[in-house]
Structure formats: structure tokens, C-alpha cells
């Protein structure tokens, strides 16, 4: 079967989808805010893989450029998200996202 012999676009997309699913799973199920953040990083990187794969098979530089932007964005996001987590800890004395529901009602 061709799928197993040559590595093509679909492989990248499958990997990316798996990575995306894992990321989402981490975001939705983990209680630790840091782990949720890591899930977000996984999702972003799944998107990056997609961008690069399409870029390679399309033959242009747009996807690469977009990927670079996403990396920069992810770095900024991580910085801000970590700051939020620190503040969260300062306020609630925990980083467990499921126990923080003061916005309820």
C-alpha cells in the first residue's frame, strides 16, 4: 500500500490531526493550568505542521512564513498565559482550573 511506502501529505496531516486531538484532550481534561497550557502549545504546533506540510506540497513560502508567525505568537502566548497562571495562583492559591468558577452566575 502506497500509504506505508512513501511519506506524503496525508502523513503529515494525520500526525497533525493526532497532535491536535491530543492537544484538545489535554486542554479539556487536565486540571492543572500548566498542562492545559501545554495542550494549547500542542494544538498550535499541530497547526504549524499543517501549515508547513501544505507549504511544502504547494511549493510556496506563505506557509513557512505563517509558521514562523505562529511560533512567535505561541511564544508570546506562553509568556502571557504563564503570567496569568502566576496571578491565578496568587489569587486562588491553586492552579486547578476546575476549581476556579467564581464567574459562575
Amino acid at each position, binding site marked *: 500500500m502506497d500509504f506505508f511506502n512513501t511519506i506524503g501529505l496525508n502523513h503529515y496531516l494525520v500526525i497533525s490531526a493526532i497532535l491536535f486531538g491530543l492537544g*484538545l484532550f489535554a*486542554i*479539556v481534561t487536565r486540571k492543572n493550568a500548566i498542562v*492545559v497550557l501545554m495542550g494549547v502549545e500542542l494544538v498550535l504546533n499541530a497547526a504549524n505542521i499543517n501549515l508547513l506540510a501544505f507549504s511544502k506540497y504547494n511549493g510556496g513560502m506563505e506557509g513557512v512564513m505563517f509558521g514562523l508567525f505562529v511560533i512567535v505568537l505561541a511564544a508570546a502566548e506562553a509568556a502571557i498565559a504563564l503570567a496569568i497562571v502566576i496571578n491565578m495562583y496568587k489569587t486562588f492559591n491553586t492552579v486547578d*482550573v*476546575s476549581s*476556579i*468558577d*467564581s*464567574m*459562575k*452566575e
Partner: protein
Amino acid sequence: MMHSLIQLSIIVLLLPLLSFVLLIFFNRRLPRNGDFLAVGILGATFAISAWIFWDVIVIGYDPSFKLAWSFNWIDFGDVPGVGPLQIKMGIMIDNLTAIMLAMVSLISFLVHVYSTGYMSGDKYYGRYFAYLGIFTFSMLGIVLSDNLFSIYIFWELVGLSSYLLIGFFFEKDSAADAQKKAFLTNRVGDIGMWLGILILYSQFHTFGFEEIYEHIKAGDFHMSQAWLTAAGILLFMGCVGKSAQFPLHVWLPDAMEGPTPVSALIHAATMVAAGVYFVARIFVILTVDALHVIAFIGAITAFMAATIAITQHDIKRVLAYSTVSQLGYMVLGLGVGAYSAALFHLLTHAFFKACLFLGSGAIIHAMHHEQDMRWMGGLSKKMPWTFVTFTIATLALAGLPLTSGFMSKDAILAGALGFAEVEGGGIYYLIPILGFFSAMLTAFYMGRQIWLVFFGESRTHLKPADEHHGHDDHGHHEVHEVPWAMRMPLVVLAALSVFAVFSPDPLDGAKGWFMHLVQTPETVVAADVQHENLNNAHHDASVAQGENKGASAETAAVEHVSDAVHGAEQENVHASVAAAGHSVVEEHAAPHATDDHGDEHHGPVFNDPRQAAIAHAAHENHDPAIMYSSIVVALGIGLALIVYVFGFINPEKTAQRIRPLYLYSFNKWYWDEIYDATVIKGSLLISKLLAWFDNNIVDGIVNGVGALVRKFGTASGGFDQYVVDGMVNFTAFFVQTSGAAMKKLQTGKVQTYLVMALVAVTGYIVYYFVQVM
């Protein structure tokens, strides 16, 4: 640049207003309640008026003198369909104005002086002088006005001040009633006057006297001649009200409820004469028909009031009816065309009647408010000053020779005789006959009054005890002469009732300065619209010319008239001047007459044949008038002597014998009762009908509408409560319920939201693919 006389007259006009303003606001803070201020200001008013009088009358001595100044008071701009429209205010000074100014301010000044004695100790002393001030202001305003509009304003102002002063003792019911009566009766006349003004204004768009004369003369009156007659009679209605002419005379006798000096000033000398003055101002626009109405009203008034005065007991009421009667003479004089005679009588009457009223005030003052002549008597020794002045004024009123009243009354009666002659006799002779008869009655009732008041024994003790009105000290005081403040005006006014003031010849007022300076103006109503009497006038003028050929000494007027009528002999320069149409006052007349005929005749020269004929006939009848009036006055005085002095006829028994007549006179011809039964009852009935209509129909409609609106309101309220509120409430309920359900979704946990977003996106994607496939 205003003429200095105009400036002076404005000062004269405003000074009494100043007196009013100062006294009405500050009288309680001023020493003596400010009476010295009022008297001083009025003194100044009189001094300036006398200055004007001196300038115009003594220095000027010009029959055609006229000075006018006016300004735009209200400018309506260019009114669509009418053209430029303004209302002007202004001042006009002619000889009559100058004389009236001096007369009004002199009498007002004297009354002020007199009042310091008469009213001293009154509760509202200061207010009294304030009212006198506003009265004098408005009266001078009437005299100075040059247009109908401002004369109407001042007309109402004198009505107001008259109202205030009649009811000055307003705590008395009778005074309050009298002031209301005076005001309402005057309103009736004033409405007519206003309608007359509006008729003229609708035609000419101006109120100015001179402009109206010019317009009528130029034939700008586009309605039928009956309208001009109507306008004249309506304007005359103002005079009927203000000058207490029949049938609106009823207020004046009741006005005697006011303080006596007020009666002298307002209800004898000035305000009531304003009506006559006003008719004189509109004299030239009156048609022959209007003049006839005026003449008959005057004659009826003169006669009726004289018959009433005979039987009255109240000293002031006798004088009041005498005033009505004399005003009737003046109106009669104007009606018959004896313009200058009527105004001459206005002037002489003002002085002697003011003197009589002030004299009666002195008597009332001395008698401690006793006004009933039955309880007087024998005052001549106790009050010599009052007696002498009162007698002089009485002689003037009765019209005895050597007095001013003689000259003016005879001039009017001569005019009436001439008028009757020119009008062709018949019913028109009623006017002079009533005039002569009234002259006799006047002599009689004044003789009665003099005798009852001053001669015989004092009858104070005869007064029934129950008629005493509350004065516990009544009748215990000695009667004595009044103070000098009250004596001085009497002396001045009595002196002004002597012939020498007005004319060098005691038998002929026409030789005096007044008749020379105030000459009958020529009518501006075109001759061809004067009705058929014109033919009589032609005839008379022709006859006059025939006489002229026989007797060399004939009047200039006749020459002019015959020339004007025949219109042929142009070689007579003066006549052609007259024929060329010098209208209002023929200024060449006086010098011309003097040149040709010495001082035989000073009268004006008329183009209008009727006026000319009347003037001529009046002149012819001068001597007969003197004769008749002397006879009737002698008869009247003789009758008074027979009845009251010699006692040949007992007045009480005679009164019993002719009881119906006596009662008719004593009850004032029952006019009050007639008005009570007709006008007052009638208007009360109408008022009741209207009240019923108001209570039942109008209120019913209003209440019905109210009930309807209430019903509708209830319905609308129900709709509001159940439908509109229901919708609002349901919206709130729905939002609340759905909110309660939806808030369960809001867990506050970030992952729940994320899952929801995932589910939503997944759901959308699934939906998308289902759609695509």
C-alpha cells in the same frame, strides 16, 4: 423744534399727574398728608395755564389761531389691503383750548384750596387730593387732545376719576351704589362714542380731528350719508353719557354722594362739560339730522331737569338738576348751531355753578352735614360771605342782566329762535319754547333755594328726630362762617360771574372777547347732501339781502351769503374770497366786518347757506331773546317771591292740590323707576336666563363631555392595565424563566465553555458535511 406753547401745555398736562403720583404713594409719609404739594402743583398748573391764556388770548387775540403738534404713537407699517397705518398722538391748541385750560386749572386749583378746609380731618385726606390730581390730568388731556383716540382715552380716565371720587365715602352704601351707577351709565354712552369713532376710522384710517375734517370736506366718506349722521349721533352718545343728557342723565344727581368740592369741580364745572366740549370738537362733521337730534335732546334735558329741580329738598340735588338743565342748554345751543354761544355758556356756567356748589359745600359744612333745605333758613346773617357769593352766582344762573349767565343764555336762546325760524317753525319752535320755559323754572327754583336757605328763621329744630343720622352732637353747634381757605374760592368764582369779565356790554355777549375768539366753524359736510332745509336757507338769505338794500347797516355775513348763494357779483373781493371756500374759520371776516360796519357784527362768514341763515337769524333774534328771557326770568323770580317771600301761595297746599304733578316732579319723572323696571330688571332677567343656560346647557355639555371622557379613560385604563401591561409583564416573565434555565450553562469553568465551543464547532462541521453530501 416744538413750539414753546406746546411745551408749556405738556408741562401743564403732566403736573397734575405728578401730583397724583406723589400723593397716591407718599401721602401718609408727608406732613399734612401732602395737601400743600397738591395745592402747590395745581397752583403752578394754573400759573402756566394762565401764561398760555395770556399768550393766546390776550396777546394773540386772533380768531383763527391754531397750533398743533403730533407724533406717531403706534406705527403698524404697511398693512396689507389698507396701506400705511399709524395712530398719532398730539396736542392742539386753539382759542377754545386755551380758555378751557385756564378754566379747568383755575377751578381745579380753587377746589384744591377749598378742599383743604372742607375735607380737613378726613380719614383719606391724602388720597382725596391724589384723585383730584388724576382727574385734573385727564380733564386737561381731553382739552388738549387733537384726535379722537386720545380724547377717548382721557374720556375714560375722567370717567374713572369721577367713579373714584363719587365713591370717595365708600363706606356708605349709597355712595358705592352711586359710583357704580355713574360708571355703568357712562359706559352706555361711551360704547356709542367708540362705535362712532370706529365708523370714522373705518373710512379715513385716522383719528385726528383736522384730518377727519379734511377728509369729509374732500368727500372721502364713501358710505351713504346716513352713516355720517349715525357717526355723529353715536359720537354724541358719549356726550349724552358724560354730560348727563336725557336719557342717561340719571347718574349725575346720584353723583352728589361724592364730596361737595368734587361735585363742584367734576359734576358741575369740568367733566360734565367735557361732553359739550367734545361735541364742539366734532361740530363741523355733524349733519343736519344729527344736529336736530342733538338740539331736541338738549331741549328735553333742559326742560326735564328744570321741572325736577323745583321740588327737590336736598340743596345739592337742586344744583345737580340745575346742572343737568344747564348742560341741556349747552347741547341745545350746539344743536341749533349756536356754537360759540354754547361754549360761552359752558365757560360762564363753569364759574357760577362751581361757585354755587362750593357755596352749598360751605353751607353743608357749617350746618354739620345737613343737606335738606327744609331744615335750613336764616343763614344770610350767619354766613354773609357765602350768602353774597351764592347770590351772585344764583343771579348768573337764573340769567339776570349784568351777570355772565345772562349773556351766554341769551345768546343760546337767540340761536334757538333763529334756528326755529330757519327750519321753518312748527315743531322746531318747541326748542326755544322749552328753553324759555326752563329759564323761567330756573329762576323759580333758584329763588326758592335762596329763600329757603338764607332767609326766614332757622328751621333746624323742626327736623324730625328720627331723621338725625347718627351725629350725637347734631344741631348743638352754632352755625358760623367757613374758614378763609373756603371763602377765597367763592369770592374768586363769584367775581368771575360778573358780565364785565366777558364783555363790555352787559346785554350782548357777542361784543365780548369770547365770542370774538371762539367763532362758529363752518360745517365740512357738503352742502348738497344737507337735506331740503337748504331751500329754506336760500329763501331766508334772499330775504335778508332784500332787507339789506332797505337798511344800510346790515351784517357782513348776509352780504357774503347772498353773494355765495347767487354766485354772481364777483366784484366784491371779500365775497369772492368767501366763495372760494375758506372753510373752518373765515379769518378775513373780523377785519372785514370792522372795516365796513364798525363793530356791528364779529361773526364768521359762512359758505354753507343753512349755517349762514341761522347765524343771521340768530343775530336778528338777539333783541327779542333778551326781551323774552327777561320776561320769563322776571316771571320765575316773581313766582318765587310770591310763593316763598310774600306767602300768597302756600307751597305745601299747592303741592297737595296738584299732587300727581308734584309727585311726578319730586320722583324725578320716575326715570329711576322706569330704568329699574325696564333696563335693570330686563338685564337681570337676561342674566338669569343666561345663568340658566349656563348652568343647564353649557354645564350639561361640559359635564357630558367630562363623563364621556371619563368612560373612555376607564376603558383605555383597562386596556393599559391588561393588554399593554400584560405584554410587558409576559416579556419580563419569559426573560426571567428562560434566563433561569440558561444560567445553568454558565458554570464559570473555562473548560466547560471550551467543550461547548467544541461541540458547537463539531456540530456545525457535521451539519456542513451533511448538507454537502
